[in-house]
């Protein structure tokens, strides 16, 4: 574990549920993690595993109804966000904790100028004149390497390319120098060539500003390049947590293993390249009717009787490498 004095975010036993007409599902179930200043934590998993809901829970932006945070704590710089009232939370949002969304196309207000949208973020939290805010906005656009920032500030989102828009989103998110930045699949919707630039930008700024970063992605490649630590989520639960090196060197959960096998040429992995990409058989189970035991068991080649009956606890397999699998010890050998 990292030095606690440097801790930006501490999430403990976070639990978010959704009430739907097909029943109750636990989108985030008992998830805990921490992020330190300047650190990058990646959260990976397939779509529907709860990683985006986790992010929204941190922001307290889970749409209610149908969703609701029902337990745990989110401590940002020493104060529990879940205990704040709405007004108090508004003071934190966009100020100490910011978020970048997956869809730069739809996440910017189409009828507001780019500059104004950043200005709004600034003026919500800084007591500055509109003119000063304008200057800050242009500065931020320059910071995210948008050419001709003065002109761009006056343009509308539709006049910008996808990559540009995501840069503007980043500028907006970082305008108040937050302690924590959450980036929810920030590059998924972008062209491959742009993806790398945006990632690089986020990392540069993170370094420059010393922000903690929670990077949500399904792309292990991205994780390998950016994060210091990784959380793997499956069916709303954290199934594995480790440093990037440890995880890629020796994944302890069969699911993580599967994820790695399903991407081409995983760097620094001991697995030999195969002719055909491995897929994880089966699909993510319905979150409403989860089996009593390990949720991954039905898809797991290593599953044993016990997996179906009892949920495996997160156990420390050394050096802070946590995994929730009855057969974690055997994972490396078997695969």
């Amino acid at each position: 574990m990292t030095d606690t004095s440097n801790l930006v975010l501490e999430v403990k036993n976070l639990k978010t549920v959704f009430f739907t007409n097909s029943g109750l599902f636990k989108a985030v179930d008992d998830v805990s993690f921490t992020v330190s200043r300047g650190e990058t934590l990646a959260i990976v998993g397939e779509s529907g595993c709860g990683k985006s809901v986790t992010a929204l829970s941190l922001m307290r932006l889970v749409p209610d109804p149908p969703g609701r945070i029902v337990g745990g704590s989110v401590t940002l710089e020493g104060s529990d966000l879940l205990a704040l009232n709405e007004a108090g939370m508004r003071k934190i949002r966009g100020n100490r904790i910011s978020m970048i969304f997956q869809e730069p196309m739809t996440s910017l207000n189409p009828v507001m100028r780019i500059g104004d949208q950043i200005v709004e973020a600034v003026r919500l939290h800084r007591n500055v004149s509109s003119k000063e805010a304008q200057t800050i906005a242009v500065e931020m656009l320059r910071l995210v390497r948008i050419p001709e920032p003065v002109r761009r500030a006056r343009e509308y989102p539709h006049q910008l390319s996808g990559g540009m828009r995501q840069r503007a989103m980043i500028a907006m998110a970082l305008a108040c120098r937050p302690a924590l930045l959450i980036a929810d699949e920030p590059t998924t919707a972008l062209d491959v060539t742009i993806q790398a630039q945006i990632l690089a930008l986020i990392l540069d700024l993170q370094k420059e500003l010393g922000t903690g970063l929670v990077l949500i992605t399904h792309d292990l490649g991205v994780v390998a390049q950016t994060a210091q630590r990784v959380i793997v989520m499956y069916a709303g639960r954290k199934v594995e947590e480790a440093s990037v090196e440890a995880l890629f060197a020796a994944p302890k959960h069969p699911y993580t293993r599967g994820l790695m096998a399903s991407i081409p040429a995983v760097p620094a992995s001991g697995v030999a390249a195969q002719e055909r990409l491995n897929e994880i058989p089966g699909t993510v189970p319905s979150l409403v009717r989860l089996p009593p035991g390990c949720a991954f068991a039905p898809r797991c080649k290593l599953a044993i009787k016990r997996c179906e009956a009892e949920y495996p606890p997160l156990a420390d397999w050394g050096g802070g490498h946590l995994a929730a699998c009855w057969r974690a010890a055997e994972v490396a050998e078997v695969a």
Partner: protein
Amino acid sequence: MFAYLVRRLFLMLVTLFGISVVIFFLLRIVPGNIVDILFAAAGYVDPADKANLEKELGIDQPLVVQYLHWIGGFLRGDFGYSYVSEKPALQEILPRIPITARLAGLALLFSASIGIPLGVISAVKQGTRLDYTLRVVSLSGLSLPSFWLGLLILTASVAMFGQIPIFNPNPATWLEAFATYAVPAAAVGFRSAALTMRITRSSMLEVLRQDYIRTARAKGASDAAVNYRHALKNAILPVITVIGIEAAFLIGGLIVTETVFNIPGVARFLVEAIRWRDYPIVQNLVMLIAVVVVSANFIVDMLYAVFDPRIRYTD
């Protein structure tokens, strides 16, 4: 943009031409003409008198000739003479336009100034008791026959205040002038406010689901800022369209309201002219209304471009 404008204007002309043909021939399908109506009161139609009068009015000519004669005049601004009053049609129509325009304007103002805020409130408070109440009230606005409402207003006003809010052609004060229009405008506006409210509500609800609203919240914007600065500005576009279309529908509501409140505007005049088969009045008035409606739609489209930066008509 220029090419788009040219295309739009061309289509407008095509539409207007179509309307002129439709109204012209539709009127000719309606049985009987001015002569029959004029003679009806006398209890018989003298064929010789009828032929003379038809000749005098030019309605004995082939339809195509009549059409060309009319449309040619319309394009030159020569509206011909009313068959009934024998005065220039333009002179009959023009003084009535401001009356209806004021009434319609006030009704639209009423509709927008009540409908939009209530629609926003209803959307923001979706599912609450307030939302339900507003929706029921607005639906009832859409359910009352307007002439019935008008009749009840008049009756109640006479019973309660001994005053009747019918048209006053010579208002003494500015306030009286306003009162002359306000009550009937409210009677028409009630329905259209209800419609505006519903459109605003559903448009707001849709916008509130959008990603950029989440972004705004993520910035720490307050509910008010989110609802008004971000959502309303986006939600207003369909509302503008509907208000534009509503302007055309308003004419229908005005016919009935002008009758109940005895307002000498164009809407009731049009109905009377149809009853008299006063072709020059009906044709030209319908064309004028069509021009207004078509231009209103055009303006709404242009307003779209102003309000929505995404739209720059280029195709």
